[in-house]
């Protein structure tokens, strides 16, 4: 009887240590993997916060897409929340849904010296009518529903063209 109690105690202690240890690791891991979302206005207000890792969302401005380097296939375009505008530089695959006037979320960091957002990835797991909810919120926050409707209109114009 005594032996089994001792055994149970050891097992419990081992389990509790393992669990709390791994929980600690998970929480650490959690902190490292949080990515905050910014609208163009927010990123210009607090550029420090986005200097390491951030997501930037907005509408791709019409006529702003240009090729910086033809060999490297480096692109530069401007996203806006109809209040502020931020230039994004990106090199790599463009999802098919990448169109001017379309909503977009990019992940990367803000280069404070050059005032450019360097995107590592462009998130593209959605269809064309989808607007990232964060973009929607950001747009609503700065200009109310009207600009949102205007954005959607632009988008539809783009598609039918």
């Amino acid at each position: 009887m005594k032996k089994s109690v001792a055994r149970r105690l050891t097992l419990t202690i081992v389990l509790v240590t393992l669990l709390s240890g791994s929980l600690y690791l998970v929480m650490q891991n959690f902190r490292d993997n949080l990515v905050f979302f910014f609208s163009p206005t927010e990123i210009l207000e607090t550029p420090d916060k986005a200097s390491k890792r951030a997501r930037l969302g907005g509408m791709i401005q019409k006529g702003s897409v240009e090729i910086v380097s033809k060999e490297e296939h480096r692109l530069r375009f401007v996203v806006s929340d109809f209040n502020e505008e931020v230039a994004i530089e990106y090199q790599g695959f463009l999802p098919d849904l990448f169109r001017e006037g379309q909503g977009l979320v990019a992940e990367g960091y803000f280069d404070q010296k050059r005032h450019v957002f360097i995107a590592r990835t462009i998130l593209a797991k959605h269809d064309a009518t989808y607007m990232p909810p964060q973009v929607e919120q950001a747009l609503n926050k700065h200009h109310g529903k009207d600009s949102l409707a205007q954005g959607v209109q632009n988008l539809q114009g783009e598609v039918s063209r």
Partner: protein
Amino acid sequence: MIVDLGHSMLLAAFIVAAVGTIVPLMIARRSTLLSLRFAQINGSFLLFLLLGSFLSLAYAFMTSDFSLKIVTLNSEASEPLIYRLVALWGNHEGALLLWIVTLTLYVVLFSFSGRGIATHQDRTRMLAISSAILWVFLLFMLWTSNPFETLKVTPHKGLGLNPILQDPSMTFHPPSLYFGYIGFVIPFAMGVGFLWRGHFKKEHAHWMRLWTLIPWSFLTFGVTAGSLWAYYELGWGGWWSWDPVENASLLPWLASTALLHAIGSYRRTGSLKLWCLFLSLITYLSSLLGTYITRSGVVASVHGFAKDEQRGLYLLSFTALLAFLSFLLFAIRAYRMRSNSAVIYPTLSSFVTLNIYGFLFVSLVLIIGTLYPVFGEATVTESFFNTSINPIALAALFLMGLATFVKWKPAPLWPLLRTRLLPLNIGLLVIAILMYQETLEKNAENLIGIFALGFSLWVLIASAMAWVKKRAHSMMLAHIGFAICVIGMSSDALFQEEGTLWLGAGESDTFAGYTFVLENIQQNEASNYINEVATIGVFNFKGETVATLKPETRLYGTKGALVSKTAIAQRYWAHLYVVLGPMLETGQRSIRVFYHPLVMLIWLGGGLMSLAGGVGLLGYLRRRSSYNEVRASSNAPRFLRV
């Protein structure tokens, strides 16, 4: 006319469900047999009403009856018949009706199960509990999302089905997921019923295993099919992205898998009795939480077509209430119902215990990572899930290897392992070979991948050997499936290649040892979309044609939506995977290419696991008749002893 009939049947069902919840419990004081019979008949009538309602809605979609709101919003007369029918569950309201029909089907089937295992009174109570849940869902549907809502003006055209859902897998992927999710209401009702009564015997656990295994198989199949869909339809090159909805489907899978293991232990050793009851509650509650995440759209997801705060609030309060009540009942009864058998190390039971902790831990990580964006403005990246969950999964894989020879009775491990060293050595050899590969970077992620590959080979070979010896068919088969799945995942993670090609017409570039030539781009027109199809020739180093890939971009007129269709070619054991991107000013198109080695093993393994569930069911039906004899004879094979 038919639609009106369907609507009235739905309203009638609401009343019948309420009767089915209350009346049997009232009659039970007089005669438990009578109350059980009443519940059976009432349930069957309810199923009839709901099926009628569902079929009339299907009829509305087939004939494109645009007076109904959901028909207008989700279908179009020009679409092929199959997609008009898929639209039935491609929207929130219709999906909820399918959900309720499935739930009723489960309740009715369950009402005829359990003769000679549980008392009439227990069964009546369990049926009343599941009917109550059914009634709440009916209330939810009629209150917030009635599929028969009509429009004031009948439009001539519908808006069409979300193009991303216009895929053949949509015919079976959502229904099989529902058959999984929803079926866990039965183990929940059983758990609550047995807690209410205050007893839970081994034959009860055996019965609970049957009703966990059915939804588990469907859910496994549904999750696998969903991952396959995401792989070839969404076109971002992966098969799992820790999307909120993916996580929502994984939560009940983890809990129910833990439940199946706990039941195994309780049936054979009498330990982990309370864990069985607790996990039966957790399984259904996590499935409800998953429903909340999917249906409310609180978290941004690829399944963003269902968002509504009111619905979310309703579902969340219901889940919270059910959790509170069932946990309260558990807390009151737990001490009295505790098991006398302790878990002794090293037996299979002790590994099952560790396994349960592992599963719960992973669930916790999933919940934290999925729901955090609701509270803060930040998102959690995929690497959080990978780095937190993969080590635990690796440990679970190791336990699976041990489980091929460890016994339910305490026995020293080493002598047992010594007779079964071959599979382990093969696994270790593979690990050693991979460690010496200089091309593989030895970062934490790859190290986990290497060990996962080695261990899964060990599990695969050892389980296959045990399976051939006819030991624990379904369990070994499920473990074989899991091992195959992990082999696919880890080799894809270790040896996957991805790149972007920029090609104008007639230009070529090389990737992963193959030459890709963009031959031409053609424009076509189909009944409900126009598309661009690129023809890409793939050549090996000798210049021979290996494959011709035809990725597509579609523009669906009705919703003005662009959808990419990937093209995949099988090359030996790998996939060459191509997605077409937009045209640039230079006249070139960006084309994304992936080399996915052994990736199809993931879905093969998942399918095998689901099949293993079916094998387990057959085993149950076969054993059910000789249940008592087997129990009496002590020289029956180890895994048959119950």
